[in-house]
C-alpha cells in the first residue's frame, strides 16, 4: 500500500505582473493514473505543467514528486523522469525527425551512438504509427498530425515514468484526434506511466482520463473520477462539459 501521490501540488500560485494565473492550486495525482486537466483557454493549464517541470518558478506553494520537493536534488535526474508533448509540438526544426525523437538519448553520459539512436527513433516512430521514411524528413515537411505524433514519440522515447500532454488533439481533424487519443491511452497503459493531459476536447477527456480536474479562475474548481463528471452537480463543470454559453463561467475573459 503506497498512498504518497506521484505528483502533489500544494497551494501553487503564479502571477504575471498583476495577472493572477494560478491562485492556490491543490492537486494530487496518483501514480499510474491518467489525470486530465480541463478548463478554458488562458486559465493557466500550460503554466501549471511548466511549474511542475521547473521551467517556470511558482510564486508560492510546493510541488512534491513522490513526496519529495521538486526543486531539491539533481535537476537532470529529475527531468529524466518526465516526458512532455508540447502544445505546438515544439519540434526542433533544425534537426531531422529521428534526431528530434532520440534527442535525449544523444545527451549526457550514457548517450547512444548515432546509428543506435536512429534505430531506436525508428522503433518509437513505428509505435506512434509513422513509417521509417519519416525519420529523415525535417519537421517543417510534416503535416500537423504527423508533427503531433513525432512529438509523442519524442516524449516517450526515454521511457519516462511521468508524461505530460499539452493539448494533444488541438488543431487536428476528428479522426486524427481519435487516433491520437487511443495512442496516448495505449502508451500510458503499456508503459505504466503517470500521465497528465491538458485538453478542452471532451472526446479526449472521455478517451484518456481516469481522473479529471477542472481549472477555473486560478483554482481547481472540481476534481474527481471520470465516471462522476456527468453527475457532479458542479455548475462550472456542467457548463464546460455540455459546452453551454450560459452559466457561471463568463464568456468574456
Amino acid at each position, binding site marked *: 500500500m503506497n498512498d504518497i501521490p506521484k505528483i502533489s501540488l500544494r497551494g501553487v500560485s503564479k502571477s504575471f505582473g498583476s495577472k493572477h494565473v494560478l491562485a492556490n492550486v491543490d492537486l494530487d495525482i496518483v501514480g499510474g493514473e491518467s489525470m486530465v486537466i480541463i478548463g478554458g483557454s488562458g486559465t493557466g493549464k500550460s503554466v501549471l505543467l511548466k511549474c511542475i517541470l521547473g521551467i517556470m518558478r511558482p510564486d508560492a506553494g510546493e510541488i512534491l514528486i513522490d513526496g519529495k520537493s521538486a526543486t531539491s536534488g539533481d535537476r537532470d535526474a529529475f527531468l529524466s523522469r518526465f516526458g*512532455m508533448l508540447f502544445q505546438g509540438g515544439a519540434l526542433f526544426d533544425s534537426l531531422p525527425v529521428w534526431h528530434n525523437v532520440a*534527442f535525449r538519448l544523444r545527451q*549526457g553520459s550514457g548517450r547512444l551512438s548515432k546509428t543506435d539512436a536512429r534505430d531506436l527513433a525508428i522503433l518509437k516512430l513505428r509505435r506512434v504509427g509513422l513509417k521509417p521514411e519519416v525519420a529523415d524528413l525535417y519537421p517543417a515537411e510534416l503535416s500537423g498530425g504527423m508533427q503531433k505524433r513525432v512529438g509523442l514519440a519524442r516524449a516517450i522515447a526515454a521511457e519516462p515514468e511521468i508524461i505530460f500532454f499539452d493539448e494533444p488533439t488541438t488543431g487536428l481533424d476528428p479522426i486524427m484526434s481519435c487516433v491520437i487519443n487511443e495512442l496516448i491511452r495505449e502508451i500510458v497503459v503499456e508503459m505504466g506511466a503517470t500521465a497528465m493531459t491538458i485538453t478542452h476536447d471532451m472526446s479526449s477527456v472521455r478517451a484518456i482520463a481516469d481522473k479529471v480536474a477542472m481549472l477555473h479562475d486560478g483554482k481547481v474548481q472540481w476534481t474527481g473520477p471520470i465516471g462522476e463528471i456527468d453527475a457532479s452537480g458542479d455548475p462550472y463543470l456542467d457548463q464546460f462539459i455540455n459546452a453551454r454559453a450560459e452559466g457561471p463561467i463568463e464568456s468574456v475573459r
Partner: protein
Amino acid sequence: MAATTFIQGFLASIGRSTLGLIASFGRVTIFLVETLSHIIRGPFYFTELGHQLLRIGYFSLPVVGLTTLFTGGALALQIYAGGARFNAESVVPSIVAIGMVRELGPVLAGLMVAGRVASSIAAELGTMRVTEQIDALTTLSTNPMKYLVVPRVVAATIVMPLLVLVGNTIGIMGGYLVGVARLDFNAATYIQNTVDFLEFGDLTSSLIKAAVFGFILGLMGCYSGYNSGRGAQGVGQATTNAVVSASVLILSVNYLLTELLFPA
C-alpha cells in the same frame, strides 16, 4: 500651467527611459555572467559549435569582403585628395593600411556581421522561445544556455578575427587597386610602403577588437532572442533590438579599446 505639465511629462519620460536603460544594462550583465559561467563548465556541444562557425564565419565572407574592398578604394581616393593639399600624396599606402587595420576593418566587419548574424541569431532563438523549443530543450535534460547560447557566442568570437584578417587584406587591396589604377602609384612601391609601415601591434589590436566585437554581437543576438517577447511581434522586436544594441555597443567599445590600445 500647460508648460509645467509638459516639462514634467518630458522629465518623467527621460527618467523612465534612463531607468529602463539601467535595467536592461543590468539584465545584459547577468546574461553575460551566466554565459561566461557556462563557457567554462561542460558539457560543450562541439557539433553545434561547428555549425555556427560555418554559418557565422564562412557565409559572412562575401559581405565583409565587398564592404572592405570598396571602403579601401574610397579611402585611397580621399587620402590622396587630402594629402594633395599638403603635397603629401605619398602617404596613401600607409594611411590606408593603418586606417583599415586599426579601425575600419574591425568596425566595418563588426557592423556588417552584426546586421547579418546578430539579427538571424535573435530571430532564430526568438522563434525557438515563442514555439516552446527552448522549454522543450530543458525538458530533454539539455541546458539551452549551453546548447544554444555558448556555441553561438564562442563561434562569433573565434570567427570575427579571421573575418577581419581577410577584410583587412581585401581593404588594403582595394586601396592598392585604386592607387595603382587611378592614382598612378607604382605597384611595387605601394606594397613596399604598406608592409614597411604596418607594425605588429596594429595587427594584434585589430584582432583583439575583432574578437571583442564578435563576442558582443553573438551575445546581443542571443540575449535578444532568448528573452524575446511573445508572438511574431516579439520576435521582430528582438531582431531589431539585437542589431541596434550590438551596433551601438560595438561603436562605443571600439572607442574604449582604441583609447586602451593606442594611448595618446
